[in-house]
């Protein structure tokens, strides 16, 4: 696939933005400034950046909680995201929800329900609406490999294939579901084998190679848009931290982490851009500088934003209150 420079640099930008924003989240969580939990996509950024950047403006995503990159790439700004983490009124959900449990229908981002794989049937319904209305839009849904053990995964893929709707299922296979390794999550080697049961074509890609993810996603979206139905894309990666910030992940063999450290998606991409002469080191440093500034501003914005008032808890239960 021939990808233009501006698109490649955009991929790089979102990779780096994701990394830096999540690093700040982690720091703020450790300072006790973010309450609840903090889950990041550290080392896995290429997946959500890749699948989201390959979409068109009118497409829709049903992300899961490691998809910060997709939130950003869809246009949810760092300001709104930082404010969301701090529970501020200016956050994506006005403080109703924390971290990436958020959505913005105008940007084609559905809110992530914690219950893993619940977003898969929802994405099928999104795609179904496109099919019914004859729109050339696609839906992309992502979940972890653990989430693929849930019944809703099965029901979603089955419906999608029978109805041949324009949905692409992405799976972040980071080898663990919390502490549970793939080996006791499923008896197959590749999650992609699951797609066989629905006659859905699948592809396995290096989840640490953003260009690979982007290209595979783009191809699948094209198929979907052409009316050829769903695709399943398994992105192989590794969760480099604990499940969340409060998990030391002692259950992960250190060698595994060492091995994957070498495959960092950002370093990968920098190497790619420079060795292919798409970009210069200087250019990348400039991008990074821009990102740092953006995040500083976002953080400042978030800090200065007001908290909601307690009684706002009562608002917005119904779209048409009685």
């Amino acid at each position, binding site marked *: 696939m021939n990808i233009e420079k501006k698109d490649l640099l955009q991929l790089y930008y979102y990779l780096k933005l994701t990394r830096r924003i999540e690093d700040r989240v982690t720091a703020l969580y450790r300072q006790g400034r973010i309450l609840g939990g903090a889950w990041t996509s550290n080392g896995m950024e290429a997946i959500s950046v890749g699948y989201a950047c390959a979409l068109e403006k009118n497409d829709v995503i049903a992300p899961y909680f490691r998809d910060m990159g997709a939130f950003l790439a869809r246009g949810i700004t760092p300001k709104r995201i930082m404010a969301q983490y701090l529970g501020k009124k200016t956050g994506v959900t006005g403080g109703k929800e924390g971290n990436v449990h958020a*959505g913005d229908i105008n940007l084609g981002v559905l809110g992530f329900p914690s219950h893993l794989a619940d977003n898969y049937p929802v994405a099928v319904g999104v795609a179904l609406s496109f099919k019914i209305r004859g729109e050339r839009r696609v839906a992309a849904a992502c979940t972890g490999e653990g989430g693929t053990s849930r019944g*809703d995964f099965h029901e979603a893929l089955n419906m999608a294939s029978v109805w041949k709707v324009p949905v692409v299922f992405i799976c972040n296979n980071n080898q663990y579901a919390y502490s549970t390794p793939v080996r006791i999550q499923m008896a197959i080697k590749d999650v992609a084998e699951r797609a066989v049961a629905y006659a859905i074509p699948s592809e396995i890609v290096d989840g640490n190679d953003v260009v690979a993810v982007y290209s595979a996603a783009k191809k699948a979206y094209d198929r979907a848009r052409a009316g050829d139905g769903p695709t399943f894309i398994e992105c192989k990666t590794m969760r480099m931290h604990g499940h969340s910030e409060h998990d030391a992940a002692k259950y992960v063999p250190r060698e595994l982490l060492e091995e994957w450290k070498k495959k960092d998606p950002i370093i990968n991409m920098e190497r790619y851009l420079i060795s292919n002469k798409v970009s210069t080191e200087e250019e990348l440093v400039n991008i990074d500088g821009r990102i740092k500034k953006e995040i500083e501003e976002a953080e400042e914005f978030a800090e200065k934003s007001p908290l909601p008032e307690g009684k706002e808890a009562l608002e917005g*239960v119904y*779209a*048409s209150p009685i």
Partner: protein
Amino acid sequence: MAEVTYLEAISQALDEEMTRDSNVFLLGEDIGYYGGAFRVTEGFYEKFGQWRVIDTPLSESGFTGAAVGAALMGMRPVVEMQFADFISCAFDQIVNVAAKNFYRWGGKTPIVIRAPFGDSVHGGAFHSQCPEGFFFNVPGLKMVAPSNPYDAKGLLKASIRDDDPVIYFEHKFLYRRIKGNIPDEDYVVPLGKAKVVREGADISVITYSAMVHVALEAAQVLEAEGISLEVVDLRTLLPLDKNGIYDSVKKTSKAIILYEATRTGGVGAEVAALLSEDMFDHLDGPLIRISAPDTPVPYSPPMEEFYMPRVEDVVKAARRLAAY
């Protein structure tokens, strides 16, 4: 004006809403080519085509989730559970996704879930349940349960036009047994409004769905004895029409709460709780709940009969309250 059955009223509402708004479409098992287990959508497949009357795989959670997704895109899906009993398979999508989307992130989710419920077909524990209690502690949901053709049509239209997820409980016993006149013109019955279906002075019977008819029968029996029952049809179960309930009890000062679901933790408990909180000074006697006992629905006729609330239960309770 035309006389229709309760089932025809439902069918008409679907047909008219689908004709009015191309965003309305249907999903469920065997609703398309076959016309539905209870034949509510007979002829729809021919009229609206396979993509507006979708025969789904056997996947309640899946197709409810799909309805949620379509609703988020501006469609107005109406899901049919073949029997309300199977709604439990879609429980998570309903309570955690559909009901919380709007609050959590502003995602409008106008889905309607039609759930044919209640005892009538001698179906035993899995074809007779009244599952409204499962969903009664779920903010963000709405629930309706009409008792007659007029309300059946008007509430279904209102549910489809509403911007929130609504579970529409249609009673299988009423499908072909209850007829009524309905206007030829378009109308809705607004959500959230109870209705006094029989005025009375002595005791309020607060009830819904098929039990409304039990209450009305009891009222007739008691009239002869000089006990005057007022029958309040809740129509919308969630959120409850508090004022509608209170207005009646202010008048009568006594209340019976009648429902077909099992006793503990159902809609009846909430009505009692509301009255005991807000109408304490108006009450001249204990509240009496009449319901099914706390058991699964039994199959064998004598047990099934024993299980169901009866006219005589209401009559006895009313006599007791009248003498109080």
